[in-house]
């Protein structure tokens, strides 16, 4: 009986302790990355290479998705708005949806699955093939040489990608709304300009994308660094990166939206 209870308590306690331990290690790791960032910015070519792999190579999927999302918003928005006789407000609907929510969030989700998973797999494999240990032997700190550039590459790429997503989406909404359906081009842009605010809408959307960029990048590099040195370990870490990043993006989005758009 006592043995049975003992096992039960252990079964509940162990995952909690493990999770807390991982969270604490993650925080210490985040601090270490920030600590070693200064050296990375002195050798910016390290970051340039990572921006190429996370940002430039994600460009096509981000812009094509943005175009499609904007087109769908144009179609769906027109269908709903014309019931109220307000189809001229299509530009406002498309641009506000993209700038405030869909741009940062969908770009963040795509970024997590396109770039975050690649970062985790790369770092996990470097760890499994003992490249990180080899660096330590050569007195090169792997956090400064491998982790920090990837982290900052992601942080810099994400806002740019979200901005491009929103811009492509608005063009997609324009193509469907104005070119295809025939909403008046003048009122499409004029109403958009009258209703969209640079600070409330554009700047807040960019702040969101910066926060998501930091979250996705730190999760990706941490999962890679923390991955067990086996094939299953790396694949599990890659999956965890995508799942955790997506949940964190959506959760943070609720918090940020509650702060930003309460009274507006």
């Amino acid at each position, binding site marked *: 009986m006592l043995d049975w209870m003992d096992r039960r308590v252990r079964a509940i306690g162990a995952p909690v302790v493990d999770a807390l331990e991982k969270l604490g290690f993650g925080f210490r790791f985040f601090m270490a990355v920030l600590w070693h960032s200064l050296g990375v910015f002195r050798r910016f070519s390290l970051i340039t290479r990572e921006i*190429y792999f996370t940002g430039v190579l994600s460009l096509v999927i981000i812009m094509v998705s943005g175009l499609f999302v904007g087109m769908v918003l144009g179609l769906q928005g027109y269908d709903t708005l014309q019931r109220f006789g307000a189809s001229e407000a299509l530009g406002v609907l498309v641009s506000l949806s993209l700038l405030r929510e869909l741009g940062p969030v969908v770009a963040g989700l795509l970024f997590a699955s396109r770039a975050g998973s690649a970062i985790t797999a790369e770092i996990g494999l470097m760890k499994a093939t003992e490249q990180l240990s080899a660096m330590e032997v050569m007195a090169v700190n792997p956090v400064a040489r491998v982790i920090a550039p990837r982290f900052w590459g992601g942080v810099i790429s994400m806002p740019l990608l979200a901005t491009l997503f929103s811009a492509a989406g608005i063009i997609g909404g324009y193509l469907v709304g104005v070119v295809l359906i025939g909403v008046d081009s003048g009122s499409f842009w004029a109403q958009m300009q009258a209703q969209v605010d640079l600070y409330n809408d554009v700047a807040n959307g960019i702040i969101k994308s910066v926060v998501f960029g930091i979250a996705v990048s730190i999760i990706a590099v941490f999962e890679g660094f923390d991955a067990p040195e086996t094939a299953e370990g790396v694949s599990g870490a890659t999956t965890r990166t995508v799942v955790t990043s997506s949940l964190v993006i959506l959760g943070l989005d609720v918090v940020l939206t509650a702060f930003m758009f309460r009274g507006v």
Partner: protein
Amino acid sequence: MNRRLYDFWVGLFVVLGLAALVFLALRVSNVSSGGAKPTYRVTAAFDNIGGLKVRAPIKSAGVLVGRVSNIHLDPQTYRALVTLDIEQDYHFSRDSSAEILTSGVLGDQYVGIDPGADETMLKGGDRINLTSSAIVLEKLISQFMFSKAAENAPQAKPAQ
């Protein structure tokens, strides 16, 4: 791939991103109309401003001449004090009147200015004295209901 090629692509990426940002700032949002022109500030007190908001447009004959910069309640008179920023290109006489109007049935509310006939013009710090309040739909309905009730009342009396 060598470093110069990375630099080229990253440079292109950053330029694209900044171009998108400029597109969002200039083409999509209203940064170009955000207080670039010099304005002068006048106030107007209203009994009821309805749903008027800060940054609501000020129009005269339908033309945008400025924006509402501040709204607060005067603690002495309990009237709403609205601060209007009017562009310096436009001058209105001192006896102009301000009213709160609605664009369309469901549209936003704005301040309309009807010019007067006085020779002297409004200048910064002046107050518009002639104002008419926003039409509040609930009050309109209740007025209508009361006037209907008043119409029916005399007919009811002879029957008694």
